[in-house]
């Protein structure tokens, strides 16, 4: 018995103390730190870019520096009219990340709500939500978005609306699955036996245990949304020009690819690393929350 108790104590200590040197998952820590660091750097530039003195005007044209390769003056080179590509990436990130964040929040809120209700109430609510999810996910995603943007026009609002239609069912499905699992636990039954009201059980017992999964998947969804928005603007279907997004910079560079390959590869690399970092952070969060429960 004492060995069991000791074992449990060790496990729970590990679950709690992430700096434990013997923790086997520590080789993933530097990846997590790198990924989180990259996200912080990107966020910093995008949020404060307009006030940073060394970032040039993204729209200023310079006939002396057309389609130049990266240099000390222009870190990411220049575009076809001599605009600084780094400044354009910073400026474009505002729209790309704003769309990603807004859509993720809408997805967490609406998708989370639908999934939570479906998984907890079961019955006809579940049937309805499952039908909605299946139908939405059965429609080719990009076609749906293109359809909406074509009909409604290419405004920021419509792009967010269209991409939300991808995020909501995806998150709803994951939250529903997680809720089903949590709602079956004895502590939910125990709350019912105590006479706690249904709504209160949902908020106090179920939600806190579904939240980690939801937040982790929100990071993954953020990455998917970034790619979706960039695909749209690459196709010229996102927010209309002259508004800059990461996808539109790549699309612009593609036209004269032999002159301006840096306009495709460097913004592409920023997008790639950002999505990769979001995935790493999401994955690591999922793992870390998981340890806390399996540590029991």
């Amino acid at each position: 018995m004492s060995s069991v108790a000791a074992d449990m104590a060790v496990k729970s200590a590990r679950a709690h103390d992430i700096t434990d040197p013997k923790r086997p998952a520590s080789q993933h820590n530097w990846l997590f730190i790198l990924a989180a660091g990259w996200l912080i750097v990107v966020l910093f530039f995008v949020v404060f870019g307009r006030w940073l003195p060394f970032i040039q005007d993204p729209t200023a044209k310079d006939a002396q520096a057309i389609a130049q390769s990266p240099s000390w003056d222009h870190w990411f080179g220049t575009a076809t009219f001599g605009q600084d590509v780094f400044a354009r990436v910073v400026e474009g990130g505002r729209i790309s990340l704003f769309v990603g964040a807004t859509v993720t929040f809408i997805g967490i809120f609406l998708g989370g709500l639908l999934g939570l209700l479906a998984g907890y109430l079961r019955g006809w609510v579940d049937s309805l939500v499952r039908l909605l999810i299946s139908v939405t996910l059965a429609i080719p995603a990009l076609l749906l978005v293109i359809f909406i943007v074509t009909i409604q026009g290419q405004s920021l609002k419509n792009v967010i609306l269209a991409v939300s239609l991808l995020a909501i069912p995806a998150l709803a499905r994951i939250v529903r699955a997680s809720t089903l699992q949590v709602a079956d636990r004895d502590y939910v039954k125990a709350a019912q036996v105590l006479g706690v009201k249904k709504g209160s059980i949902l908020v106090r017992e179920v939600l806190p245990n579904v939240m980690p999964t939801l937040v982790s998947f929100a990071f993954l969804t953020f990455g998917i949304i970034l790619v979706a928005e960039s695909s749209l603007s690459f196709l010229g279907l996102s927010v209309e020009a002259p508004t800059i997004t990461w996808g539109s910079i790549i699309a612009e560079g593609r036209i004269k690819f032999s002159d301006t390959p840096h306009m495709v590869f460097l913004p592409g690399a920023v997008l790639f690393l950002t999505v990769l970092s979001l995935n790493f952070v999401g994955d690591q969060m999922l793992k870390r929350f998981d340890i806390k429960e399996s540590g029991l």
Partner: protein
Amino acid sequence: MAGSGTAHLRDDPRVLVRVEHMVVEFPIHGGTVQAVSDVSFDLIEGETLGIVGESGCGKSTTARAVIQMPRPTSGSVLFRGTDLTQLSAEDLRSVRPDLQMIFQDPISSLNPRRTVHDIIAEGLRVWGDRGEWSIDKIDELMEAVGIDPRYGERKPHQFSGGQCQRISIARAFVLDPKVIICDEPVSALDVSVQAQILNLLEDMKARYGVSLMFISHDLSVVKNISDRVMVMYLGKVCEVAGSDDLFARPTHHYTRALMAAIPGSRAIVDEQVLEAELPSAIDPPAGCRFNTRCPAATDECRSVEPQLRPVGDGHFVACHHPHLPVAAAS
């Protein structure tokens, strides 16, 4: 053996719970699982009723159906004269504090993201002070169940299984319930911890005057804690008797087989150990449900369902050919 009947129900003003003809069925693909079939029993104030049987015999479902989780398909559950099966969800909720439950899995029954103090005080948050306990006295309650009150802000995963079960006990007692259903509360624990938890339960029961329904598949555990024992087989009652009486003279062939299966008990109870598996509860055997495995089964057992009948001293058995001492049989 396994039969119906209400002969064993008592007419006593102290009867707290009286279950009559309770049936619990679960529809599944391709049939209906008859988890509990026409089970009746009662529980007197301050009494501990042990319910024993193999896995899948419906003992957990029986106890859970008393608190309407799940609601029985038919039959009545009288708690102090109120039929719980007829109550609306909201009326039922108002009775809930009197009927508490302790679960088998000590880990899964505590929310991993709440503190122990919060978990224990949850009932008070909903209902306010009902009697013995209040928010200020949570520390005292924690001490009573053997958890250091200084650990109140810890989360359940920082405790061992036995300690988690102590926390569950505190949570069940905080509302001053009348009845506590213990669904195999020690089955998941080490043997050494089992005794501590059983002692704690007995101690708390005596101190705060509750009745227990104690479910277990372990006869030795039930023997020590119960005043009265009900043996179940495939959704039916086999035998009901006072604990000492049942263990002194097991009358049902199934009860005898269970006792013979306790290591080292063959000298006391001479009965074949059961071989075949429990029959399906979707399509149970006709007549006595135990006839497929019973050494004394006759044609009568295969067609006529036995009813519970008295064999003296508040001992009841549902069997056509009970194993009775020669003196009692003649």
